[in-house]
């Protein structure tokens, strides 16, 4: 999973198995917003590989991924921004 990543800093994100909700890995475990997520340097990615694999095995999360940050430390891609902040449209 880490081979194609380009940036220097990342967040670890996934979806909760039961709800499908987007979560980020924090010091307190998996939480639904990115503010408290641990900022991971690319050299440490493999350490976090082990963390999400264990939590996938424990049936806590699925579809884990590293979310790239830009130079200012914000989530880089629009898709990941939408994953974090939710729909950009009014639904009702």
């Amino acid at each position, binding site marked *: 999973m880490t081979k194609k990543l380009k940036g220097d800093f990342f967040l670890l994100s996934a979806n909760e198995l039961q709800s499908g*909700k987007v979560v980020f890995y924090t010091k307190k475990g998996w939480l639904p917003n990115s503010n408290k997520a641990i900022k991971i340097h690319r050299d440490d990615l493999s350490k976090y590989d082990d963390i999400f694999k264990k939590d996938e095995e424990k049936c806590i999360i699925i579809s884990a991924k590293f979310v790239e940050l830009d130079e200012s430390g914000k989530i880089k891609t629009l898709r990941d921004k939408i*994953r974090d902040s939710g729909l950009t*449209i009014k639904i009702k």
Partner: protein
Amino acid sequence: MYKYSNIDKKIIADRTKQFQNQVERRLNGKLTEEEFKPLRLMNGLYLQLHAYMLRVAIPYGELSSTQLRKLAFIADKFDRGYGHFTTRQNIQFNWPKLPEVPEILDQLSEVEMHAIQTSGNCIRNISSDHLAGLTAEEVEDPRPWCEIIRKWSTFHPEFSFLPRKFKIAVTGCLEDRTALLVHDIGLRLIKKNNVIGFEVFVGGGQGRTPHIAKMIRSFLSKKDLLNYLEAILTTYNQLGRRDNIYKARIKILVNELGVQKFKSLVEKNFVKFSNEKLKLDKNTINDIFNFFKLPKLKYSSNKLPISKNKKFNEWKQQNTLPHKISGYSIVLISLKPPGKPPGDADSRQMQELANISDDFSFGEIRVTHEQNLVLPHVNNTQIYQLWQQLDILKLATPNIGLISDTICCPGMDYCALATARSIPISQKIGNNFKKYFDQKSIGDIKIKISGCINACGHHHVGNIGILGLDRNGEEFYQITLGGSAKEDAAIGQIIGPSFSEKKLISAIRRIIKTYRKNKKNASEDFLSVFRRIGIEAFKKDLYDNTRKKN
């Protein structure tokens, strides 16, 4: 409307139970995600950007009021109070929780619905004309044929693991409202020498390699329908590519072999594998047709009411069609009010619409592939009263077939595959062309928007197609012109460099301006003008103006 047999009921109940067991095993870790994913997909359950998404089949787009009421209940109890009607006449719930999905399926089975074969490499929901059985020019009602195909294709053991997904549409009219020619198989009922049979088209599709389907049989006898479908599917199953997901659809096979070669292989398989058990006899056909009789409608000379209410008159002009039984009308309900995601209906609207359909349209509702709804049999004397009720529910937007009646995929707001958002584009178009008079003066036009090259928003066949792209992390939109999903189906041509989200609406305005400038008379529609003057005229106006402004 079709009613489940005991066999139908049993297989749905068994499947629900089976999936419940699979979900339990997934939640307690006995199944890994890798093992579970194909099982959930077979039951229409995807994982999207923010949550799971459950796609529920609406066979050939036909719903009863009881079913719609159940969908409203599911939206409220298990989701976020709304559902999204899709371009294949299905409905999607965007926020279900995995442990609750078996209960949702259980609820659906109570009203003869399910989510089977709404995903995966199998034969998907059979789609059809939303006006099936309602118009005078129809050769024959296609819905019974859809049902016959549905029965044959459900859990078909040989076609459950095809090279790729497989979509079939059936129409009974020359005027195509099903996007027949961009389906893997398109069946058109025709009458030849006073005998009704099918024209058979194969290899249509959109996605990254769009193709218009080609005719391989100019007349197929009704009794041979299932054997011929088996022959097509067998040929595809044997020869379709499984090594490359992008080249696995039947359209690629037909294109690589050439239509004549493909046709001869199908004909050989048809002779070789034809099975007496699959031959359709008159009794079997009649039994199915009996489910699709019209309700008891009384002929009358009642016309649509004349009113001084401008809003009503606009709606009446735009959203009603004559029924084949004089005295009744077909009412089209737009799910494209300005500012709302196309195809979405909230639970209150669904609940109330179910009641309305009981009161005004014999409890029947249809879903169109253009993401609108239909009340099929409304007495002309009740039209004004119906309109008043729809208006309260914000379901009386008079824009059917006009520029704000866009088809649109969920795009990057929901979809894990999308490269750009599409709903905000649709909303901008709706807000920019809000006034009925303006829209009407533009005339019939189809704008179709996809958030990625998979083309769920049918951009290839939009008169104006919009494809969302990711250009170095920024959303850009490529415009195609001249596409059509109708009987004169065509793939749109790319007009030139793409536009940022900011500049897209003014680009569309300029395209419309070119069309207006070149229109010979009030009734010449966008596609006719495009076909007459070609893309260069549009290109010149569009990019010359851009340069001046820059």
